[in-house]
């Protein structure tokens, strides 16, 4: 038998490249099942971490940003349609979602070390956190806003005068994106010193 002359790696290699039917079947079946379990489990975990309940299960979020957000248009409004935390903070498509989730592992570290576990600490850190969100949204052209607010579907005759003035010019031309003009749409603002367009 040729196999006996080969080393362990060589034998494994030939098993993979030249397996018997049964071995092949078992490998495929196991792989398939494991795939489903891992993939399903992974995505389920992703989905669980992608709910508002999960976001505000953390006291840092519940006591600060959540309370502020409850007074804003995306929580209480005339149509009853809500935007929840992940709607604005987590991308919808898979690749971007994973990238955002990996970035979030740093936030888990912040949680463990109690970086923002009091209101004072939270407020002190708000600016750096807000700057990060603004940068992310600026770079992706406010993708999360646009998931719900489609520029093509905006009916200017239904909007206020001030909205039309800005939307039909700087927004339409692509010079500005939503977050350039709508900072603080869901939370209180940090000290705006040095932020473009603010005092």
């Amino acid at each position, binding site marked *: 038998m040729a196999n006996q002359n080969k080393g362990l790696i060589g034998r494994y290699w030939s098993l993979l490249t030249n397996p018997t039917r049964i071995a092949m079947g078992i490998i495929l079946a196991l792989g398939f099942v494991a795939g489903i379990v891992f993939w399903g489990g992974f995505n389920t975990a992703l989905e669980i971490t992608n709910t508002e309940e999960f976001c505000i299960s953390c006291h840092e979020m519940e006591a600060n940003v959540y309370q502020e957000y409850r007074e804003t248009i995306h929580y209480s409004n005339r149509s009853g349609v809500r935007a929840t935390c992940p709607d604005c903070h987590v991308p919808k498509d898979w690749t971007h979602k994973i990238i955002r989730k990996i970035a979030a592992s740093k936030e888990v570290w912040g949680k463990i070390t109690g970086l923002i576990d009091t209101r004072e600490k939270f407020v002190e850190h708000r600016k750096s956190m807000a700057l990060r969100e603004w940068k992310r949204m600026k770079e992706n052209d406010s993708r999360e806003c646009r998931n719900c607010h489609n520029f093509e579907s905006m009916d200017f005759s239904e909007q206020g005068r*001030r909205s039309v003035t800005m939307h039909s010019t700087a927004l339409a031309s692509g010079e500005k994106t939503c977050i350039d003009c709508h900072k603080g749409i869901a939370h209180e603002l940090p000290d*705006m010193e040095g932020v473009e367009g603010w005092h």
Partner: protein
Amino acid sequence: MKKRLTIVAFVSLLTSIIATNVAWADMGGVQSLRGLEELDANNTADSLKRVPRDRETFERDYLHQPPLIPHQIRGYKVDLNSNKCLSCHSWQNYKKTGATKVSMTHFETRDGQQLSDVSPRRYFCNQCHVPQADAKPLVDNNFNSVKPLAD
């Protein structure tokens, strides 16, 4: 005949006094704009009036009147950290946003000193400027604008 008339008049006067006393017993006799409602009872609340999103600017009625705000201001925060109003009304931003720029008086301290930025006493805009709901006045009003402002 005359006597009978007096009695009728007297009786009706008496009943009307009693009737009003019963009705006003707990009101202290005061009828307010809220209507005749027992003090210990809640009267039905009027529906909230809406502030139109944008409207024409208001005419001013007297000199040095802080102009009324002709737009909604829901969620516009003015605090130590930020001033939403100035993000449109400041001299840096008014051209881009199409808003009226704050006038020179907003840069003055109370001793008339001119600052290079909005004076602290004019920082909290809503102290003086308020939006108007779409509501009819409750009481008639025949105020006339001063001559130079009346058409």
